[in-house]
């Protein structure tokens, strides 16, 4: 084989492909169904705009990049900021030490308020007292239900993961389930473990946990399939995130199992699956509400001295159940990526 001609043909390959793509485009290769064109152009929530002086709020979370859940929290915070004439500074790092540095960064910027998640409360203790020393109000959201008061936070918005798990366990009881499997997509994550523990607490049947590799969907699919094959008695698969529930649908059919699927957290594909009946129900902790309330509360505190929960009680945003009976009212908001 002549080497130079092979080199040339190799190098030509991308150009041929580009040309082919262009040709297909020109040939009117548009899709008649689905796609952007068919998507409704719906606006997000908008409730006028405050005329109060501009203030700055920092929202610092323990989000891992590319997680749909945190994207919804952030959208809620942005909506509140836009309404309240607030400049929102969003930052996140799953590493607790780095998260503390980001809070310090916000203090250095002399912001008017800080909203934080307390996934690892001990690591944030010092920096929270620094913020208080600098007279910056701090509120908590999402995780840290048992620690926000001892750290001296003004108020807290979120769901008690254990309570949410307990609610799901109770629901499984009423549905007559005997054996459930709780799928953890991130081994060692405390919030996820609490959810499964909550289910265990109230559920009359037996619950087994199953760890899957959450960054690799094909392996999530085959691991759940394996579990359903190994234990034919499982009648409910409980997942802890919307994308994993959708994958579990395929596992159930691959394993020839008759298990139903329940999940924590929502997204727009999941609402479709609930109305179709392929997924039974979801426990929603309303992440949009958490982000929105956290930012809005700082505006209220600065402009009217209010604080929700009176500094004594957390404000719970969940567990709200979404099932076939109420999915239609939720679906259009989920389509915008806000529920």
């Amino acid at each position: 084989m002549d080497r130079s001609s092979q080199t040339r043909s190799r190098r030509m390959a991308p150009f041929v492909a580009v040309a082919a793509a262009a040709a297909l485009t020109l040939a009117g290769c548009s899709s008649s169904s689905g796609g952007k064109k068919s998507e409704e152009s719906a606006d997000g929530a908008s409730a006028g705009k405050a005329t109060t002086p501009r203030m700055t709020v920092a929202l610092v979370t323990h989000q891992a990049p590319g997680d749909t859940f945190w994207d919804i929290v952030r959208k809620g915070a942005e909506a509140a900021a836009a309404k309240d004439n607030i400049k929102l500074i969003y930052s996140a790092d799953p590493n607790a030490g780095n998260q503390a540095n980001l809070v310090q960064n916000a203090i250095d910027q002399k912001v008017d308020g800080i909203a934080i998640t307390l996934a690892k409360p001990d690591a944030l203790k010092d920096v929270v007292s620094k913020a208080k020393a600098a007279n910056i109000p701090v509120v908590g959201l999402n995780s840290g239900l048992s620690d926000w008061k001892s750290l001296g936070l003004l108020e807290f918005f979120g769901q008690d993961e254990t309570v949410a798990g307990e609610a799901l366990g109770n629901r499984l009881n009423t549905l007559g389930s005997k054996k459930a499997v709780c799928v953890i997509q991130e081994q060692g994550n405390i919030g996820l473990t609490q959810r499964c523990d909550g289910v265990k607490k109230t559920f009359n049947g037996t619950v087994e946990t199953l760890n899957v590799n959450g960054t690799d969907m094909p392996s999530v699919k085959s691991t759940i399939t394996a579990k359903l094959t190994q234990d034919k008695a499982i009648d409910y698969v409980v997942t802890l995130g919307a994308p994993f529930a959708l994958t579990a649908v395929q596992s159930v059919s691959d394993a020839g199992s008759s298990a139903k699927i329940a999940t924590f957290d929502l997204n727009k594909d999941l609402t479709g699956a609930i109305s179709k009946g392929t997924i039974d129900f979801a426990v929603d902790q309303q992440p949009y509400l958490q982000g929105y309330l956290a930012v809005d509360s700082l505006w209220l505190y600065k402009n009217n001295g209010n604080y929700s929960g009176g500094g004594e009680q957390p404000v719970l945003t969940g567990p709200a159940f979404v099932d076939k009976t109420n999915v239609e009212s939720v679906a259009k908001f989920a389509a915008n990526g806000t529920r």
Partner: protein
Amino acid sequence: MSMTQHAEPAVTTPPASGPKQTDGRTAQRPLAIRLLARPEVGVFLGAAAVYVFFLISAPPVREASSMANVLYGSSTIGIMALPVALLMIGGEFDLSAGVAVITSALTASMLAYQLSMNVWVGVIAALVVSLGIGFLNGWLVVKTGLPSFLVTLGSFLILQGVNLAVTKLVTGNVATDDISSMDGFDQAKKVFASSFDVGGVQVKITIIWWLVFAAIATWVLLRTKYGNWVFAVGGNKDSARAVGVPVAFTKISLFMLVGFGAWFIGMHQLFSFNTVQSGEGVGQELIYISAAVIGGCLLTGGAGSAIGPVFGAFMFGMVQQGIVYAGWNPDWFKAFLGVMLLGAVLINLWVQRTATRR
């Protein structure tokens, strides 16, 4: 252990010359030992050991449908482990392989959706993008002479950030929109993510693709000039260049081959799950590299085979699913995985040593 264990010469190379070489030991060297000297035989025995172990300890593994599931899990690792292994034989490796899969899936999905095009337009565009990423990785490695560890660490981070930022910018969310109702989806699903029935067992098409790709890769490595080039540039780049091997072309094309694999698996994920989350794929590169190393590819390059990584990926899939089939305590999952894999690699190493000692 010999460091230059080329796949082909391993069988034909006469035993190390010693004072007693003329006494007929060459003839006495049993076939079994000669077979063991091949790099893929160690991993084959390791995989067989793991398989038998789970066959005994996990009853569901004995069913054909379970084996189909194990093979499916192995195939999505294995299809990527093949080009990753070829690249390692060629003396380089690619840390961006895990997130590159997601980049490809995101490209295809968003392009088709946003422009409301037939999904095949997205599929072809994603192929171009994936090959382009491979080309850039290879070109940078060849032109700068930097270690591929550094170059692909850079592209790993870039792709991770771009995946997230562009998806957010384009869709307003961090996951893509559902494309399952669009034109061409069903066709593409047939190619990349369908399954068919064999005696009542649902077999995923990725298993077939995996074996086809492995067969092609084996043939290319052992029977073509290009295969010799791959071993040569991985063994010793300078002497390869001196005897007229096009080093730059070989290396760049190997990186592009990884791009092709990323595209294929990316398309499988897209058409299997309809949407893609932009944060996925991180950490997968190490699994692909592990499968290749377990499969007998040396981290130093110049040695290995294409069939070895097939068993390497099988071992990974077998252990991963076998633990679940056995119903063991899931808290120990990762630890089990690590111990079994280390054990398998040690068997592999021991076999190689025993076989090549004489």
